[in-house]
């Protein structure tokens, strides 16, 4: 071998090192630069500031950015059910673009390969555009007679970090140890990280981290870590964000020529109709029979449930004994509920104890137990906890 050979091959090796460094630079820099970028703050101060920032005149700051949602819940492989199905959010990684102008100006776009789904809200009206079906749906949001105030909260915006953060914050009480990290970084911005760790031993949740922007206190990221894994089991957050008012044309929508235009009114009116009544009835009945065992992070919900109901509802055969509006109907079209059910049940392990016997479905964050005497127990707890809960009738 010539001496020059080594020198020569050093060039591509150096190139590979540079590329590898460029790919890995983000996380490494964030981990290495441990200096607090922000002044120290207690959890209470931070929360107060955050609440003040969201409640101030004019609402939250206008912003736009890219939100990425990643879940690795350790679910059994779900049958692929179309990208638009909400079930697809349970695994893999998804990206939406968000433009937020004011409390009533919002655009959420979900880009997919050569397709795009858009939700645009501007004042009292909204548009839902689906390029795959070439359909524009005009949404009229009823004001006043609905329980939602002047700021309508559409379903897809459940995906913005704000809502998720609020939901998690509601759990923070004596069951939770709260601390604040002030040297983290999300989407290139210094953030405060509010770390909530459950005190209960039986919980599957290691900790929940909520990142609040250091300047505007807008929640930028929510991460849920399961016990015994370094990567978050669920993560929702901005990968890119700017706090400048987005261009006005983002919030105006005119249906393109040739598109199908439909109209829909969102409000309580949707809930009228026989089916909705049945749903409500069923939900009421379930709610009255359901109970919660344990408290805090280790609470387990016990719901009366029978497998035959679900199977009947899922297959769509109108069984006389089946409860009207069984849980199977909640699965969206496009997903095959039967296939989903089969694949979930296949992964379930049969368990038994002094409390009886049943099937256990275990994921990284949630454990579910379907007992043979017709109860469904769900909780973010270890299998031992859930069988203990099954024993307390």
């Amino acid at each position, binding site marked *: 071998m010539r001496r020059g050979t080594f020198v020569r*091959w050093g060039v591509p090796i150096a190139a590979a090192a540079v*590329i590898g460094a460029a790919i890995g630079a983000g996380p490494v820099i964030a981990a290495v630069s441990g200096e607090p970028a922000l002044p120290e703050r207690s959890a209470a101060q931070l929360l107060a500031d955050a609440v003040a920032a969201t409640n101030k005149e004019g609402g939250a700051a206008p912003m736009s950015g890219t939100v990425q949602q990643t879940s690795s819940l350790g679910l059994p492989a779900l049958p692929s059910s179309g990208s638009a199905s909400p079930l697809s959010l349970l695994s893999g990684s998804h990206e939406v673009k968000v433009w937020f102008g004011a409390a009533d100006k919002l655009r959420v776009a979900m880009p997919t390969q050569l397709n795009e789904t858009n939700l645009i809200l501007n004042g009292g009206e909204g548009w839902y*555009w689906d390029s795959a079906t*070439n359909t524009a749906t005009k949404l009229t949001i009823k004001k006043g007679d609905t329980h939602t105030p002047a700021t309508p909260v559409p379903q897809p915006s459940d995906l913005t970090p704000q809502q998720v953060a609020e939901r998690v914050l509601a759990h923070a009480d004596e069951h939770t140890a709260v601390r604040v990290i002030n040297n983290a970084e999300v989407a290139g911005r210094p953030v405060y990280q509010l770390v909530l760790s459950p005190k209960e031993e039986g919980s599957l949740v290691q900790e929940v981290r909520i990142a609040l922007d250091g300047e505007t206190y807008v929640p930028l990221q929510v991460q849920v870590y399961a016990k015994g894994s370094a990567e978050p089991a669920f993560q929702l957050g901005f990968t890119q964000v700017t706090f400048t008012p987005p261009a006005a044309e983002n919030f105006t929508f005119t249906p393109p020529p040739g598109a199908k235009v439909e109209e829909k009114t969102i409000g309580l009116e949707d809930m009228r109709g026989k089916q909705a009544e049945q749903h409500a009835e069923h939900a009421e009945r379930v709610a009255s029979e359901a109970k919660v065992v344990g408290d805090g992070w280790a609470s387990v919900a016990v719901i009366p449930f029978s497998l035959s109901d679900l199977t009947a509802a899922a297959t769509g055969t109108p069984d006389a004994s089946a409860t009207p509006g069984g849980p199977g109907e909640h699965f969206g079209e496009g997903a095959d509920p039967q296939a989903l059910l089969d694949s979930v049940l296949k992964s379930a392990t049969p368990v038994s104890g002094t409390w009886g016997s049943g099937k256990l479905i275990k994921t990284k964050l949630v454990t579910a137990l379907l007992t043979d005497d017709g109860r469904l127990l769900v909780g973010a707890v270890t299998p031992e906890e859930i069988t203990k809960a099954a024993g307390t009738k």
Partner: protein
Amino acid sequence: MSTAESATSTATRRTPGLVPVTETMRTTERTEEPATDHPAAGPSGPSAPSGRRSAARATWAFWRLLGSELGLTFRRPRNLVMLAVLAAVPVVIGVTLRLVGGSDDGMGGIIQAVAGNSLMLTFVSFSFLVLLLMPVAISVVAGDSIAGEAGGGTLRYLLAAPAGRTRLLAVKYLNAVVYAYAVTAVVALSALLTGLVLFPAGPVTLLSGTTIPVLDGLVRIAITVGYVGAGMAALAAIALALSTFTEVSIGAIAGTMVLVIVCQVLRAIPELGSITPYLLPTKFTNFDAVLRSPIDTGALADGLLTFGAYILLFGTIAWARFSGKDITS
């Protein structure tokens, strides 16, 4: 390798069919001799202008070599047939959509968009062609570049001329890049003309549901051509690197195609979702970012960075291999 060395050192360096590294090194050095030979004679006087003159001569030689390479590439019947086939695909797609269009209600949105506007045919054609057919054309030209010369026994003549290996490699790569852009432009033009003939022209509806004027649409097509061409240039770098490892050009061509197909298979496996962003073909279809409102510059920049990384990595591999290789044929 050692036998080649000993052969040249003992023999008269006139062994037919054998151009070892040392000899081509010497031939390259010879061209630079006038610039560096007499630095002591006149440190300020003649060396600087003669250096500039030789540098100018070198650049001229580079462009002349590139010109002759391009002439060869675009006169080769094989390459012209590939261009013609690629130009025919948008026509076939357009005619099919024209015949099918309007009758069926259950069509996808993008098909309907084509039926409604002539410019959309370009994007649809690209979305079909970038997956397989365009990579085939590019890997044939780029994979053939070094291996074809080696297999045909002409590589040693190219290296016997005082061209230098790095320069020859650069010329070969630029040649492949020009062909890649030619392929992209031909597809775009063919699709544009077919679209204008078969479908109504007018304001373009984007994926986001907004409408833009025709001129804006043409600008977006130009951006697409630039982006897709860059992606094909990245693929050409891989084919060139493989081409330096073999003397059988079909080996380099097939190797590149196998890589492309393996990448497509890997992308289809959901469990491997974490590696797909790093695969080259994943970025080929990112051009649909121009069809969004506003243009998703982040996705385009991300794709271009990936292309740059691939070009850097495989370009240096090709250089390291080719500059240290004994040419035995």
